[in-house]
């Protein structure tokens, strides 16, 4: 959704670049620094979600004697006003946050592929235009308020339901980008050849068009992940959804309700905020990397300042360095 305007231009301009690697060979490019850092960070968070609840030193809901204690050896990230261990809350809460993000992201991506690619391929026909109009409507509806109203009618909705609701309202942006990409792809020779041979529509979409759009699908998946994290955390922060299930949003909800910052308990508030931002940042970095892969002109890493300056100022054509030579 919102976070993803960065991929819009790429998808509009660089179809030749997208199709080339898929056709020429299976050689994967070397990972850029951004992707590496992003993947490592994301890996740490996923690991945290898997083993976090097991290694958490305390029961996050258990009330302890140390009230509002600053970080110490016993409580590495201090305690809340009920003596609950913030580190344990953070570790246990990581699972819900990450599961919601991935479930919502995956579902929304499936929906955006169905709507975007199909409406792009069938553009001009009644079915195609109908699908396109549907995604335009969902795109224009304000996401967060709609989510708030829907969840408010589902009191104590579990994280799974919230994830499904996020996916149901959040797929439209990806659909729009995929539609634009498909529109440019559908008249390429290999698609026309498949059509001439008499392949079925769903087969052309799945096996001819989609493989050439993998990078765009991946970029839209990543940005849906960030959106889902922000929306889920925001919802729980407002006190919607299930407020018995630990997540980073719930830590912030209690911190806000008990005025953590006013009493100076920064350790209650900062870790969950920082983790949310870092998780989003790691995904964003991978997204940047993918953008640069789709549209090599965007690449800046690895080139010296002087080279870049020469590149953009004195030559109209931006040289694209082969992978391996630089970066």
């Amino acid at each position: 959704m919102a976070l993803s305007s960065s991929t819009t231009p790429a998808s509009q301009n660089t179809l030749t670049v997208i199709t080339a690697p898929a056709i020429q060979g299976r050689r994967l490019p070397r990972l850029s620094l951004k992707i590496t850092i992003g993947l490592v960070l994301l890996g740490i968070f996923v690991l945290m979600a898997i083993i976090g609840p097991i290694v958490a030193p305390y029961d996050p809901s258990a009330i302890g004697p140390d009230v509002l204690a600053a970080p110490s050896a016993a409580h590495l990230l201090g305690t809340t006003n009920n003596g609950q261990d913030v580190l344990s809350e953070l570790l246990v809460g990581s699972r819900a946050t990450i599961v919601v993000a991935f479930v919502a992201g995956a579902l929304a991506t499936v929906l955006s592929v169905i709507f975007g690619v199909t409406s792009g391929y069938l553009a001009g026909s009644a079915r195609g235009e109908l699908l396109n109009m549907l995604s335009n409507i969902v795109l224009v509806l304000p996401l967060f308020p709609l989510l708030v109203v829907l969840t408010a009618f589902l009191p104590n909705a579990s994280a799974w339901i919230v994830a499904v609701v996020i996916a149901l309202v959040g797929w439209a942006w990806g659909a729009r980008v995929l539609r634009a990409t498909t529109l440019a792809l559908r008249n390429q020779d290999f698609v026309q050849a498949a059509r001439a041979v008499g392949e079925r529509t769903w087969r052309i979409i799945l096996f001819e068009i989609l493989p050439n759009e993998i990078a765009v699908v991946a970029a839209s998946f990543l940005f849906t992940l960030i959106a889902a994290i922000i929306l889920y955390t925001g919802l729980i922060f407002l006190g919607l959804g299930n407020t018995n299930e630990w997540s980073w949003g719930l830590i912030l909800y209690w911190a806000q309700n008990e005025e953590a910052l006013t009493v100076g308990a920064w350790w209650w508030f900062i870790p969950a905020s920082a983790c949310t931002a870092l998780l989003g940042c790691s995904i964003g970095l991978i997204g940047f990397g993918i953008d640069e892969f789709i549209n090599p002109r965007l690449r800046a890493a690895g080139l010296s300042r002087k080279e870049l300056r020469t590149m953009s100022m004195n030559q109209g054509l931006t040289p694209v360095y082969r992978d391996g030579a630089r970066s």
Partner: protein
Amino acid sequence: MTFLARRIGLYLVTAWAAITINFFIPRMMPGNPAEIVFSRLSANGIVTPAMYKALVVAFGLNTHSSLLAQYGQYWVQLFHGNLGTSITYYPTSVASVIATALPWTLALVGVATILSFVIGTTIGTVAGWRRGGWLETLLPTTTFLQAMPYFCLGLVLVEYLGVKLNWFPVNGGYAQGDVIGFNGAFLASAAYHAFLPGLTIVVTSMAAWIVGMRNMTVTTLGQDYVLVAQAKGLSRRRVMITYAARNAILPSFSSFVVALSLVVTGSVLVEYAFSYPGIGYVLFQAVDNEDYPLMQAVFLIITLSVLVANLLADFAYVLLDPRARQEA
């Protein structure tokens, strides 16, 4: 003008969809929100026949008429501006609660959106123009700001700039004792109170503009007309602004709807964090009190405002892009 006509058509259909969703949500959901609303209203005081009628229409309470007839009645009520009675602000009508809150949000979010767009686009242009400059190396940090929960930044600002340093007021839209009106003193007070919430929205929503504009500028710089402009010996500034930026900015307008969604999400949460007397705060109050009529009306109003904002962006797009004007 077909471009604008098509867009207006889309927005009308969207408005209809939002209103219809609003009609169906309370009827589709498990549980019985109508009962909750009715008992809450009765607990507050006498339910007048007019209120009861609005409730019946909005939630399908105790009604034997068909769904279609209910839908018709719902539209009639809507056109009369009768959105029901708020539980939170009993016995004020939902319409007047919203009328009080809306100007605050429109001013705050409107100014914040424009500032965020202008600042973000400018930074993005410069970052794309000066490849390899320090601005460009800072790009990844914008993701951090963007992914940071809006209210976190808001609450940290409240604590340090508001409470610790006492530079800015930490809640409300104006000082206590101010008389609301269009005079210099009141507007100054309102602007002073809007500074921190506005800053939060601008900082968190700016990143989308920066990244989009930077990527488009980089892509545009590879075009032949930019090369020709440089070859003609035009000044760098002129090439940057009237050749590169002018073309690179177009996708920013067509993805305006996407960035606006970010601003709206941010502003709801930010208004809550700052207890700002706008629509977002009202939405929170409604959620907190299970005030379904108010919640739904707020959703409708936000949707309609978003549609109008998008329409304005489309007008700007038509002004900037001759192709959209000629397309017939």
